[in-house]
């Protein structure tokens, strides 16, 4: 099993979610995060002091899938999250040793 961690643009989230759903990837965990990649340099001020805020809001999607589905899921995310401009995000594939369903206690995989 692998965990796919995809960090994407918030406005692409609905599309990605729907595309995953249509392809049978229902379960997911999502988090609002802030990220910095090639975009930088928004400045904020408070009462005379300048503060650099270079972190923009992103959505992190985590989906745990069997090894054989990793490629398919990744492809779906890339296709649906892409705009071609900096800030589109990243996908990381992380090994998962065990996955347990709490409701039943059963070990999945």
């Amino acid at each position, binding site marked *: 099993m692998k965990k796919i961690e995809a960090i994407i643009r918030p406005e692409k989230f609905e599309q990605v979610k729907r595309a995953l759903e249509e392809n049978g990837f229902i379960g997911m965990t999502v988090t609002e995060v802030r990220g910095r990649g090639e975009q930088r340099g928004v*400045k904020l001020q408070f009462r005379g002091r300048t503060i650099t805020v270079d972190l923009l809001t992103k959505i992190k999607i985590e989906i745990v899938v069997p090894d054989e589905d990793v490629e398919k899921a990744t492809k779906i995310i890339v296709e649906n999250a892409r705009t071609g401009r900096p800030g589109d995000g990243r996908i990381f594939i992380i090994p998962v040793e065990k996955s347990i369903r709490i409701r039943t206690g059963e070990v999945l995989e």
Partner: protein
Amino acid sequence: MGDFNTGDTAWVLMATSMVVLMTMGLGFFYGGMVRRKNVVSMISLSFISMVLVSIQWIIIGYTLSFGPSVLGFMGGLKYALLHGISVSQPAPGAENLPHLAFVVFQAAFAAITLAIVTSAVAERAKLSAFLVFGVLWTTLVYDPVAHWVWGGGWLHTWLHHVLGVAPLDFAGGTVVHVTSGFSALALALAIGKRIGYGEYSMVPHNIPLTLIGAALLWFGWFGFNAGSALAANASAANALLTTHAAASAGALAWLLASWLREKPGALGLASGAVAGLVAITPAAGYVDVDSALVIGAVAGVACYAAMLYRVARGLDESLDAWAVHGMGGLWGAIATGIFARRGVGGAAGLIEGNIAQFAAQVVDVAVTLAYSMAVTYVLAKIVDRTLGLRVTQTEEYIGLDVSQHGEEAYAWGG
């Protein structure tokens, strides 16, 4: 100094304070409905409208609206910078009040009118250009219309001449709401949709904030409508009651109407209340409470339908100033011509057989509507060509709070 009626003066001063609060309330009402990255901007647009227009009003706006008429089109410069208005001078046509109380009461009306228009540029207005647009709009749209309807201008005189009756607008159904609502429509057409409109999710980011705004609007509207009696008398009491009745009916009607299609939301409740408040505005001192319930209920349903129509048409008049203020004001102005009762405010409407009044209302609205839309559209295009009405794509993407104000509404990581 001691010659004015203290009760009336107290009431008008209070009403003024309430309308000022209401203007900022509108900022919260609107601010809760935009995305988190634009809430500071949205509130600021109302705030800035108040600031800008208040200064403009003192310098030039009051005299253009209420100064001695120049050919019926605009007021002359007699009261520029409020010169010639002494502290002890009574208000024109309202000897019970200090002239200055009338001036500042009217300033608040002018200010909120521009604030309503900001719906159309939500989440995409360039701050610097808005400062310019705002001053021009209030000078070229609001001030003339106020003059025509309230300041003794041509529309009032001419209709009186032609039909034998002047149009009725107790507290600004046409002057404030038709003007701002239809200007918002024109402005939205001129500035164009938000990036991703209809595609990205743009749900309101903070409904409690919107409801705080709605509460302040409802409260302030008592000053707006009942204050327009310019006295603390029976007419003011009637206006306050009809205002409350119409707001309640509008809220309930929108709630129930929307329930036929979707879950009945708090935004609908609040929007329905505003629809009722808008619609009763021109009528408040002329109709009785039964009619107010009808006017409010119809407004709730009609404005909800107008909103659905706007959405279906793909129009990004983002926060529904047109659907609620424009269409609500239009209905209210016409309803005044229908339901006005001689026994309430001295003027009769259609149901008491006075067709002329009804006609006067229709013409009044039509003229205001056409003038507002035309001038606003041209003005918006001129500002857009010269200064750019709209932020850049990147600025819009990042959000106006950061790009225009250098601020984040809700700090992160603290």
